[in-house]
């Protein structure tokens, strides 16, 4: 058999295929121009607390927990198997969810145009949108964002999505699901949240990038060089501001009309005005939060005071009268009552082993952490736990206890919680029996 002619004939084809693969791969670190920031289509959670009752099980046998509020709208949803049909539709009609698909085509186009005007229409040419002070303090200039965006495409996009919606291609296989930045809520941070929800600092986002989130699929990116990580932080802030502007606009500048089943602009004023005011406010919020870090006061640390501290932490955690009076002999009845308000065990039932599922601000089902596993998502350093107790975890239902507990009492809780994974140690060294 003569091979040569066959080989010669197929050679050009082989070359063409190889070349197209090689050349196609060369531009893989930039976005195609076809990729745009689009107005969101998944529902907004308007009233997270009343989405549904607490439940002991996520109630979706054989499936991942709810990924986003969108799953609540998809019918037939096994989540609602036991409820009356009428209630399915009620989620939107009663205003608990808001479906952006109900915008008219014109309104949607306007909103898209207005958002594009501030933030750019494509992720390969993002615009900061915010004022010059925010640009300077948060490093949101166009050059930084363009570089950050290119890096984001390689490192983050496949989970966190083009607009930071936490719904990238791989997100479906990831549990817990990736974070959606578009509400401006960040769980793990060191900014004082006692006076109300604040934005995280750049350092907080950096810490999450460098250390990863243990117990989830978010790995550490500490091996990228420091400057690259700074670029990513800037771009995440950009996505968050863009997403939250869109969120707030859809939430506040439109009304849901039940009869028409449509979203209509609230006032006659131009939507641009509202968007502008939201952008300005968000830029200011982010800048203001940067220097509001939680202040930690020095405290005693020797074995004896530590043992006492663990006992006080136990009392505060359980919020039982007998324990509290024993742990705080000098406190007045009113103070004790006040301390009872910090009951950890109310949500972390049985130290979290029997915690109920609740809806969080993203419309997904989450439960209070199981504190007996020794796995802390926000970081396992003592200060990390302090931050969590002091300022809560935004969006998750864990509130800031900094208003009820004093600095020393927060350390008490932290010292106790850190021993929970080791009941043997608690029993032997501190005489505290937990089952």
């Amino acid at each position, binding site marked *: 058999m003569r091979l040569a002619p066959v080989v010669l004939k197929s050679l050009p084809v082989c070359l063409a295929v190889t070349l197209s693969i090689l050349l196609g791969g060369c531009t893989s670190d930039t976005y195609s121009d076809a990729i745009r920031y689009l107005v969101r289509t998944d529902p907004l959670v308007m009233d997270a607390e009343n989405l549904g009752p607490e439940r002991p099980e996520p109630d979706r046998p054989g499936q991942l927990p709810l990924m986003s509020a969108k799953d609540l709208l998809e019918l037939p949803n096994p989540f609602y198997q036991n409820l009356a049909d009428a209630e399915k539709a009620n989620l939107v009609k009663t205003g608990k969810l808001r479906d952006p698909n109900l915008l008219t085509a014109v309104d949607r186009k306007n909103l898209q145009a207005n958002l594009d005007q501030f933030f750019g229409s494509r992720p390969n040419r993002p615009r900061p949108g915010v004022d010059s002070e925010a640009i300077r303090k948060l490093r949101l200039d166009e050059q930084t964002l363009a570089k950050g965006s290119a890096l984001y495409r390689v490192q983050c996009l496949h989970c966190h999505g083009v607009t930071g919606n936490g719904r990238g291609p791989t997100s479906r296989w990831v549990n817990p699901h990736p974070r959606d930045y578009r509400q401006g809520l960040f769980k793990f941070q060191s900014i004082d949240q006692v006076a109300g929800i604040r934005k995280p600092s750049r350092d907080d986002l950096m810490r999450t990038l460098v250390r990863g989130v243990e117990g989830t699929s978010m790995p*550490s990116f500490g091996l990228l060089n420091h400057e690259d990580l700074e670029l990513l932080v800037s771009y995440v802030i950009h996505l968050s501001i863009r997403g939250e502007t869109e969120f707030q606009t859809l939430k506040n500048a439109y009304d849901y009309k039940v009869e028409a089943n449509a979203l209509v602009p609230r006032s006659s004023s131009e939507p641009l005005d509202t968007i502008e005011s939201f952008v300005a406010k968000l830029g200011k919020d982010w800048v203001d939060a940067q220097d509001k870090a939680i202040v930690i006061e020095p*405290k005693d*640390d020797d074995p004896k005071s530590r043992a006492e501290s663990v006992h006080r932490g136990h009392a505060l955690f359980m919020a039982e009268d007998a324990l509290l009076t024993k742990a705080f002999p000098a406190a007045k009845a009113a103070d004790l009552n006040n301390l009872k308000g910090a009951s950890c065990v109310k949500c972390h039932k049985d130290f979290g082993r029997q915690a109920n599922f609740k809806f969080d601000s993203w419309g997904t089902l989450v439960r209070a952490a199981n504190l007996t596993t*020794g796995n802390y998502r926000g970081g396992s*350093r003592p200060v990390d736990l302090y931050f969590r107790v002091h300022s809560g975890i935004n969006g998750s239902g864990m509130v800031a206890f900094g208003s009820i507990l004093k600095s020393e009492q927060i350390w008490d809780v932290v010292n106790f919680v850190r021993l929970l*994974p080791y009941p043997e140690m608690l029993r032997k060294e501190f005489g505290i029996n937990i089952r």
Partner: protein
Amino acid sequence: MGKWWSALFGIVMLACLGMFMVAPFVPTWWLPEGVSTHSGQVDALFYIILYITGFFFVLTEALLVYFMYKYAGQPGTTPRPTEPAAQGGFYAMLHRWFPDAHRVEVAWTIVPALILLFIAFAQVPTWLEIKDRSRKPAIGGEKTPIQCHVSARQFEWRVRYPSSQRLRNWQTFTTNEKTIADFKSFASFDGAKPRHPHLDDVPVVNEVHTWKGQTILVQLNTIDVIHSFNVPHMRVKQDALPGRTIPVWFTPTKANTRYNEETKRWEDAFNFTTGKPDMGYRWEIACAELCGWGHHRMIGRIYVHENKADFYRWLEHVEQSQAPPTKPQQKVAAR
């Protein structure tokens, strides 16, 4: 083609040989520089095996090429059997192509067997030194190691160090029974969880630190699937198996980490001989067991400080960033 086939095979053989001869002199083509005390022994084994297999590769290829040239088939001829077939049927056919040559067969069975036996015994001392638990560095032994706990997970290395105070105790009071018990308790695990944790343990991610000349004992486990702790520069590779804690130890002979005054961080990839940053001094922990979609990015680094003081400076720095500030201790009156 005829006799040209032999030329083709000869060229391929020479090209292979040439690449092996050139590769050691091209920086990134060969083994990375070995920077642990046992890397010399591992490399020696590698070279012994390479030379043996290299010699036989050249020998067999040369014979192959020679016979291909000498007995090249010509168009129109049929192969001639070397020995008449004694039996009929299947055996006749077999014998026609594979004539019996007993002595040669015995030779090519015994020689490789002897070589394999030699390799099997020659590697024992090295293997024992790297892997055998009887040689595990112990407190109070010849070399008191520092300990850290590396917990692999998809897709990172989570590392736990003891507090600097505890580490200093291990280094100083090597004969104190309490210290020895404390040293051992660090590596006693309940699944993936330390059985006797200390509240002041220091967690870091993707970083294993030690200092030049100091043996480090890594207590390796995994919290999910199988991973493999592979540090090519230290000539260390150990699988992390679910449910088991496996000790790994090595002693670096060179440093690569210094405190950068400009960035206020400890940075590796620093060549102390030239006093300049050098990527050859970046020593990675690469996961060597396919563990999932993020396997390729499961990379840690080995930071070898120049001396003990610098290492403790780093550890105390990390400690301070994680713990509450403490009031200055009040002096206790001496009795």
